[in-house]
């Protein structure tokens, strides 16, 4: 149970940070930026998606964790300390760090997929909104984004599936402590991290079976989320091309 809890909390946290950032950047890239800039930035963002997860873990461990310990968490505690989320001792490693690293890792996926679905929105839709006197932002927010909504949702689901299954970066920063804790500062544990840490030294059939079982849970979870997201993707792109 603590493992599932840790997995869900870090993934939720990651999405909380990554969705506004990713969708915002995608809006900028598809609606506002001139094509050259947009293509150059997309190129860089796709490179970001290719960075191996262990590198994210490395940076998370040596930069993000000390930073959180010294500045980030004391700041959160001072300003939002009345919430149970931001209480308790501050180690730096913990679910907050895990969530933030995950957020960085999934943002590129959200951006490149959302950008594509927003670029697929017909120009006429935008022109109609602008013709009615809407500002550019109003046309984007009230016409383009709702039009692309299902596609954006699908990209978020794909990102969620990635966040759930991500192993290395989380293992390196989450703190590896199998307890359920209300505070985001507390160390936690995720399914993938348990498997990574204990599989190689699993002795005895029962121990091994327990870990394989955890793997199965993870597998089923990501398959279901991915499957739904893909179906949404397929139906929306087909609908778009039929028009």
């Amino acid at each position, binding site marked *: 149970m603590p493992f599932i809890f840790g997995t869900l909390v870090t993934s939720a946290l990651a999405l909380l940070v990554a969705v506004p950032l990713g969708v915002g950047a995608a809006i900028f890239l598809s609606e506002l930026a001139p094509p050259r800039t947009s293509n150059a930035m997309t190129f860089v963002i796709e*490179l*970001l998606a290719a*960075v*191996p997860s*262990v590198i994210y873990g490395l940076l998370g461990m*040596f930069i993000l964790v000390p930073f959180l310990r010294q500045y980030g968490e004391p700041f959160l505690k001072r300003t939002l300390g009345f919430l149970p989320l931001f209480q308790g001792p501050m180690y730096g490693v913990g679910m907050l760090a895990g969530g933030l690293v995950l957020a960085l890792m999934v943002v590129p996926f959200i951006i490149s997929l959302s950008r594509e679905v927003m670029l697929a929105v017909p120009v006429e839709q935008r022109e109609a909104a602008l013709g009615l006197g809407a500002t550019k*932002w109003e046309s984007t927010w009230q016409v383009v984004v709702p039009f692309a909504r299902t596609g954006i949702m699908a990209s978020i689901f794909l990102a969620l599936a990635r966040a759930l*299954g991500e192993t290395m970066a989380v293992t390196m920063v989450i703190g590896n402590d199998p307890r359920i804790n209300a505070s985001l500062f507390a160390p936690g544990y995720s399914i993938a991290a348990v498997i990574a840490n204990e599989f190689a030294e699993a002795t005895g059939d029962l121990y091994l079976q327990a870990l*394989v079982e955890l793997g199965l849970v993870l597998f089923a979870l990501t398959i279901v989320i991915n499957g739904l997201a893909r179906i949404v993707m397929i139906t929306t792109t087909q609908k778009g091309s039929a028009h």
Partner: protein
Amino acid sequence: MMHWRDIWRKFVNYFMFSMTGLCALITVGVLFFILGYLVWNGGSSLSWAFLTHLPTPVGEPGGGMANAIVGSAKLLLLASFLGIPIGFLGGVYLAEFGGRSFPFVVRYTADLLNGVPSIVMGIFAYTIVVLPMKHFSALAGGLALGVMMIPIAVRSTEEALRTVPLMLREGALALGASKWKTIATVVVPAARKGIVTGIILDIARVAGETAPLLFTAFSNRFWSPGWNQPTASLPVMVFTYAISPYEDWHRQAWAAGLVLLTLVLVANVAAKLSVSGRSAH
């Protein structure tokens, strides 16, 4: 005269768009931050000896990760033997043969397989190779990585083949070539560049995978004696060195991370530039 509401709308317009621009800048900035930090931190520990020597015990200066670099190469070779032929042929099938519903199923399954967490692949390889053999081996690691390569190879091959104009196929068929001959001598050569690019990207992706190797290829502080023995690899080395408590090892982790990131990024940039160069023609 402008109504205050219009001014407000204009303000929202500019404000929100600058916010989205900021979002984009932050994400792009992250890549340069990662690169810069790695170069700064890892560059100092990087040397010729680092690339050509074996690891030394804790406390002894020097040492490198030659065995990890060779180990990574071996694993990728094994993975390519498994992943590329299956992926390539699967892609050919999807693009050239196939009826109505079966290709859809294959494509959908490939996408699902692509989304399976890498650590689950590791468990899969563990149960079918490591358990019967009773020890960790490069073979198991290669299997895990190879299975991960299949879905991407399938999709990239298919997409590359689909860009070949139908006329080329019809021309070959009109000259009396069989369908197989058409594919092998006309369609695949025409799409060669796209296929190779896809495969390079594919290799670069699994090159950075750590999780499935932890309990399949495991690790090894010496030269791996054979294909069925545990072997070191760069990503696992970065991981074990980074979580170790020794300052010296941390520096080596940075250096190994820099080597790994450079390899992956160079492969990516080269592959993507060659694609965009082609489409410009």
